[in-house]
């Protein structure tokens, strides 16, 4: 599998062999071999759910392997927790920042490893001095006394890196470090990375921005569905090679064979704007129109404003401006219940946090949005409810032992189907799906996509958000690409190519200023 044409000047600091990780219902890692070379940037790339984050969690001691082994400097190790990993010089900068917004920069850097006098009294002066020197090394003038909550996301990222460096990390994992950074901040980060490389730190770098990877990486490893599909030195690697390995030659069957006539317009958004906390706009003048039976995919990187746009449609942001229309009539309801009644249903990205009430039974989760259908004069007919839920379970092929079991007992794919069922039970006209395939296995993915096709054929308008190129290419009748809150470009299914979509999604992220002129051209 490994065509190891490595230049041998970089010594291998960490070796992963035969790593397998099983979660209930999914195989997240399947016999993965992975090397981390010191003094180099080891890039790890793959689609969402390919297993990148799981692999990193295993290396950082957050999760433990089901099978396989990890060796540091040739010696086999086992990390019971992050502390054990840190003791071997492994630091991680998480995708979701793990900082305490209520504490100062210095406090955050030394959390749980406070510098003390006699084990009791915190030596804040020496903590501050060291924090300041770390900030200098990272070319930032963030004060050690500043509250982390008051820093921008980019600055918080720098604090995370400083935290890892303060532990003398020899292997530093960066999980999508640039997703929230501005162009100038990215430049600084890259300088820091080159500097770290020189001092012999091995960096594991995860990102979705392919150009960026080619720019900064020395070695590249591609993961797909828990397996390594390519691993080589970065020299001579092109975007097309990465894309091919990420997606695979044999396309997954997402069944786009159904063809049907599109109906009248069911939904229209005009000039939707949502101001950002840090100035500017999270959602910037977005307009979309959707016909009955049409599937429109919105592609973009993290932070492109896609989920926020959905939240605006679902009345989650009172600050949002612009107009929505359902069936040509303005959507003025300000409550979620009102909008659901008008025929809008949302399938949120965060299934655990926003989609399901984990401790309630499957039945009660599924009927939660449509209880009124089973209620007459204040009496909720459990019989009718049970029948409707059973029908939905059958229609969606949800595998459940009993609908009375808590929804948490289901696998990710089946949980997702319960959320879909909940949305469908409200008889929607427009279905909003935020990352519908996140965290579910390939088989369930195919079923979810087939279901989407079928629903569209039944006349439902579907608007879905994804970071998965193949998904957006094969499912959508039309593709919108968003970046930095704006719709950059719209493609029809026939004209879209992977390269064009990736290029459009990176608009606003590129570092040179001439590119902005290009953006204007790209815009429609």
């Amino acid at each position: 599998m490994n065509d190891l044409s490595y230049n041998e000047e970089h010594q291998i600091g960490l070796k992963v062999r035969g790593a397998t990780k099983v979660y209930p219902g999914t195989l997240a890692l399947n016999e993965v071999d992975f090397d981390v070379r010191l003094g180099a940037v080891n890039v790890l790339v793959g689609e969402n759910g390919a297993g990148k984050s799981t692999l990193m969690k295993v290396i950082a001691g957050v999760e433990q392997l089901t099978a396989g082994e990890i060796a540091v400097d040739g010696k086999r190790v086992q990390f019971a927790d992050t502390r054990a990993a840190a003791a071997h010089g492994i630091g991680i900068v998480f995708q979701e920042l793990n900082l305490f917004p209520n504490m100062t920069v210095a406090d955050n850097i030394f959390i749980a490893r406070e510098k003390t006098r006699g084990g009791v009294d915190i030596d804040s002066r020496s903590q501050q001095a060291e924090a300041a020197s770390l900030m200098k090394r990272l070319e930032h003038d963030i004060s050690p006394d500043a509250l982390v909550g008051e820093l921008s996301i980019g600055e918080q990222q720098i604090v995370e890196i400083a935290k890892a460096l303060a532990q003398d990390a020899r292997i530093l994992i960066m999980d999508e470090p640039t997703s929230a950074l501005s162009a100038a901040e990215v430049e600084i980060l890259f300088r820091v990375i080159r500097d770290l490389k020189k001092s012999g730190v091995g960096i594991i770098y995860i990102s979705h921005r392919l150009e960026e990877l080619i720019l900064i990486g020395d070695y590249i490893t591609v993961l797909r569905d828990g397996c390594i599909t390519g691993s080589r030195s970065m020299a001579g690697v092109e975007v097309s090679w990465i894309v091919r390995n990420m997606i695979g030659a044999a396309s997954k069957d997402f069944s786009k064979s159904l063809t049907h006539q599109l109906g009248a317009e069911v939904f229209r958004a005009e000039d939707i704007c949502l101001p950002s906390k840090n100035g500017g706009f999270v959602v910037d003048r977005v307009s979309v129109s959707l016909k009955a039976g049409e599937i429109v995919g919105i592609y973009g990187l993290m932070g492109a404003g896609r989920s926020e746009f959905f939240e605006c449609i679902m009345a989650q942001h009172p600050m949002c401006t612009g107009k929505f229309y359902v069936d040509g009539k303005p959507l003025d309801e300000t409550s979620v219940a009102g909008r659901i009644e008008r025929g809008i249903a949302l399938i949120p990205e965060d299934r655990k946090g926003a989609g399901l009430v984990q401790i309630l039974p499957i039945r009660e989760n599924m009927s939660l949005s449509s209880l009124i259908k089973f209620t007459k004069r204040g009496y909720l007919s459990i019989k009718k409810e049970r029948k409707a839920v059973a029908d939905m379970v059958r229609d969606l092929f949800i595998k459940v032992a009993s609908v009375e079991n808590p929804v948490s007992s289901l696998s990710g794919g089946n949980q997702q189907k319960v959320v879909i069922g909940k949305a469908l039970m409200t008889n929607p006209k427009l279905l909003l799906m935020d990352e519908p395939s996140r965290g579910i296995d390939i088989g369930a993915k195919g079923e979810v996509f087939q279901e989407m096709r079928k629903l569209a054929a039944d006349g439902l308008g579907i608007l879905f958000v994804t970071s998965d190129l193949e998904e957006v290419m094969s499912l959508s009748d039309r593709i919108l690409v968003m970046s930095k809150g704006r719709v950059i470009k719209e493609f029809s299914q026939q004209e879209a190519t992977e390269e064009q979509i990736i290029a459009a999604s990176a608009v606003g992220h590129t570092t040179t200023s001439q590119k902005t002129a290009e953006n204007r051209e790209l815009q429609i």
Partner: protein
Amino acid sequence: MTSIASAGTASGNSNQTWLLLLLKLRTFIALILVFAFFAFAAPNFLSAANFVIMSKHVALNAFLAIGMTFVIITGGIDLSVGSIVGLCGMVAGWLILNGVDLGIGYTLYFNIFEIFAITLFVGVLFGAINGALITKLNVAPFIATLGTLYVARGLALLSSDGATFPNLVGNPEYGSNGLSVLGSGAFMGIPVSIWILIAVGCGAAYIAGRTPLGRHIYAVGGNEQAAALSGVKVNRVKMFVYMFSGFCAAIVGLVISSQLVASHPATGETFELNAIAAAVLGGTSMSGGRGRIAGTIIGAFVIGILSDGLVMMGVSSFWQTVIKGLVIIAAVVVDQAQQRLQAKVALQQQAALSKQEG
């Protein structure tokens, strides 16, 4: 689908299923054990007179615990119920004794039914204040209800300068007599307060099990964000639970005043803790989303019988407090065990299902 699952589990894990059933019925089993123990150990425990007295004691706590259960299921807490009990007692007492001075040389007296209604309204009003603080002003439930605990208690003390309103027999001329029916009256040999408890208990259980509102209460406690995104009017649900809790507290205030034919401003101190204990003993989860009205009522009976039985056995009240605490801790520990086992059984059923499908 259900039949497949039960066939799959019944063959392999009948022991587990039995254990789970036992754990689910644990509060009921505890009630039987406590009852059986005192039937032997305490003299006169089984007499009818004793039952009437005990059930009256239990009813007071049960009312509060029912209201508290809803609040806790939504993930909140209501510390103010004890004070609302005291305040509502004083309101009823004031209306019977003094009426409302309109300030034009004219005093308005109400008949007893109007007094009941006004007192209940005051309880609901305090619940609404709690609810508004929590939903509109975003105060944490613990703090908001701690605040109203002090306010209501202070108002109760102010109403009489700390004195008792004695001899609340009322005046037949104004139709304000008959308060004592609530506390000492009986219908078909069963005290009126128990009839009211049955009515409130059934009503609450109906709301919890058979109305969209009940479902929404569980959903809000289980995952507020998911509930809101599903179209549940979260604020309205929270307002309801606190107002219902205030309503239950007002009932208790009336019943106690009626039993004593007097109202004292310190009535109801620490009642909120007993109510929380009964709810927890009945299987209500403090983290929200889980709990049953029937369980809570049984929990109230366990606590009530335990303390009355210990009194009858002559156990010192200091020891009673220790024993009560131990029982509550034990209940929560067993509850955790049940949760783990339940999750395991559900996962096994699901695994068995996937095996069958290949």
